[in-house]
């Protein structure tokens, strides 16, 4: 049971890192290199807007993961 608990907590921590930290990082890399894509300016702007939405939502997901972790670790 203990082993399972730490495994779940680790998985949650990993998921949180991905949501909170990795998504904004990749979003920033992609935003900065889009000019190389050859896509029309309008499409580039649309993708950048989409990435921003993803970033904001990832922030919410990370908070949700943190709540679950806090609750679960206190059980």
């Amino acid at each position, binding site marked *: 049971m203990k082993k399972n608990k730490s495994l779940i907590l680790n998985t949650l921590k990993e998921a949180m*890192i991905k949501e909170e930290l*990795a998504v904004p*990082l990749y979003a920033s*890399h992609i935003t*900065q*290199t889009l000019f190389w894509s*050859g896509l029309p300016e309008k499409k580039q702007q649309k993708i950048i807007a989409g990435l921003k939405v993803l970033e904001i939502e990832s922030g919410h997901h990370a908070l949700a993961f943190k709540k679950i972790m806090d609750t679960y670790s206190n059980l």
Partner: protein
Amino acid sequence: MNKQSKRTVLIAWLAGISLFFYFIYRIYMYSSLSLGLVNALFAFFLLLAEAHSILQSLGFISRIINLKKISENWYHHAPLDLNNLPEVTILVPARNEPLKILETTFICLTSINYQNKKLYFLDGSDPEFQEQNASLAQKYGFYHFVPKQPSKNKAEIINKILPQINSKYVSVFDADQNPMPTFLLEVVALIEYSQKIAFIQTPQLYTNITASPVAKGSALQQSIFFENICEGKGATNSMFCCGTNFIMRTDILKEVGGFDEKSITEDFSTSIKIHSLGYKSIYYKHVRVFGMAPETLSAYFKQQYRWAGGTVGVIRKLVPLIIQGKIKLTLSQSWEYLLSATYYFTGWSFFVLVMSPALYLLFGVPSYFANPYFYLITFIPYYILTLTTFYATMKKRHYKVRDVFVGTMMSSISFPILMQATLSGLFNKKMAFKITDKGRGKKMPWIALWPWIIMVAINIAALINGILRYSENHYAIGINMFWCFYHLILISSIFRLNKIPKLYEKE
């Protein structure tokens, strides 16, 4: 092949033919001249410089022609059992890197979707950095390896950990390289296809292009290399390992005795050994890793100095081994390694090509001049077709002419650095392994820019003298003035590039 690609290949063939005729004409012209000692010497150096440019252009053209072999069918993927993936050890060698840059890389490496991976941070930092590095490594689940004796270079620190690695594959990332989550699943599927595949190299794409003009310029220069040049090398099983963003079979790395510690371009020298044993390399052309370009001129020059000196140093060591038959490469591999190893002499050829018109305008040497008619029918087609091939291939990949010019400009202004580095490499002058500065912004002091200031002054003086002498010979003086003006623009761009990156302007 689509219509645009066919057209590019046709232009490349025409460029190759025109290049051949121009070179024949230059050899004929040189051998038929009877010159005094000074003129003969200048004519010889000019011929050498042009021969080097022609060799590199020929290399570029041959790669464009080879590109037609590569399509998506070129890559063979082995099916992967996601519940039984081969183990991969990820190595991040680093020395005194800013914590923020390390953390970014650790986040991305942790995020790689691959169940059977081990993460190692090879810390060659000074003791004052190690404590904070250790806690960062722990936070992200990295094994923090600190060698007992300080390591002089990347090869040495990797070789120290190598005996402890039992994974089937190792994958190496520099501290500023951020792979995407699918990286391992894609490259493992490729390398699993055949046991003869020793390594898979993937491109580097710099994303900090807004940080400074240097960062943008070196990103463009890097893209030219990782697109046409590497793809061409990949088509002939000649792609060498670039030291980061690759996966390699651990047993083959051990078989060649680890990375070559005597070379500061250990990746280049080790690749020759691997190819010599008959193993294959694959260049996977899709960008799966984002990285950081040097942001200041001094950082950029340090990087260029290291690559040039190290690559040329490899020639000195390997040519005798190739002659003795101890290293066996295929014809295409020998051609590609020759092109890469001699590329950095471009600093010398650029210097001679810049000095020649200026010296003619100032002192009248070299005094000979090509017959205008022959010059027109040999040089002009060669020059225009080679440039057209270059720009056409880059345009196909959505680059603007201006961007490609910026990339070329970055190569040109490095000439004093490349000249010094190639000499160090050739004569085995000890070169310290210098890490490219990242995240630190410093301008180069004016005094350090003396080689460029002198060249700018020479070209301005030559142009003034050209204006004064113009009536003597419109044709000869006009053409030399054109080249002087062009070189002046190229070289003086260094003053625009020598800026503090935006992030550090207030410091």
